[in-house]
């Protein structure tokens, strides 16, 4: 069961239309290590986690990723909603506009659509937790590239918040990995 909260996790401000930046940020909506992929992966991996702490963590981070997906969507929406067709063309978003107008759609910065093949749910808790730690680091790298590219300081502020969250999630998954190792080793002893 999920309940929606009618607010953003972190404020979104933009300094006017910027479809070029929107195109770049959209990647965190639809790339393999974007927010949708992260959320669905964590929520799906819960069912084969042996340790209750890891089940809780995947539930809570998987839910926070949905809030991040909403932040990304709010950024993109606000960056393109008042953009003129001329600006959209200049930003190279004309192909996207042809298919989706100014709607949100799950694609990466190069326009490739999201697919379930991007994510993994392997059943082995150690494998899955390592996968998640790698995904958090990959998402952190992408946020750093976006921060380097961004020409809107208000957008950069929101991107910095999201980047920090990747670091915290990486840390928590690392702790869950250690707890899971300890648990699996303990289980080997029978009396």
């Amino acid at each position, binding site marked *: 069961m999920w*309940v*929606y*909260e*009618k*607010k*953003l*996790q*972190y*404020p*979104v*401000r933009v300094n006017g239309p910027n479809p070029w930046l929107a195109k770049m940020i959209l990647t965190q909506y639809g790339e393999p290590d974007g927010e949708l992929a992260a959320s669905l992966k964590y929520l799906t991996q819960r069912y084969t986690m042996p340790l209750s*702490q890891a089940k*809780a*963590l995947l539930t*809570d*981070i998987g839910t*926070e990723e949905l809030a991040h997906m*909403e932040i990304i*969507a*709010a950024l993109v*929406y*606000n960056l393109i909603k008042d953009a003129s067709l001329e600006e959209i063309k200049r930003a190279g978003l004309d192909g996207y506009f042809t298919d989706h107008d100014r709607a949100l759609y799950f694609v990466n910065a190069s326009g490739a659509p999201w697919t379930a093949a991007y994510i993994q749910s392997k059943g082995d808790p150690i494998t899955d937790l390592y996968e998640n730690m790698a995904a958090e680091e990959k998402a952190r790298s992408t946020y750093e590239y976006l921060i380097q590219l961004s020409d809107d300081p208000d957008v950069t502020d929101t991107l910095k918040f999201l980047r920090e969250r990747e670091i*915290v*999630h990486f840390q*928590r998954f690392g*702790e*869950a990995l250690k*707890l899971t190792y300890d648990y699996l080793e303990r289980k080997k002893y029978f009396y």
Partner: protein
Amino acid sequence: MALEFTCLDLNLYLDTHPEDYRALSDFNQCAQQLAQAKKEYESLYGPLLNYGQSPSPNAWRWVEDPWPWETIF
């Protein structure tokens, strides 16, 4: 927003450190303040949560704009 973030981050920390009672006490203190702040927010701007998690006295304000992505900060 700040209170909610504090609670969320403490929540994730407690997931992997459930026996840290100092963090637990911080979390409970934060949760209490958050509940109070949400009550005040909702009395001004309408319900934050759907499905009956927030009351809606007098009028069905859930349908009111702005939605989170339309808010101008």
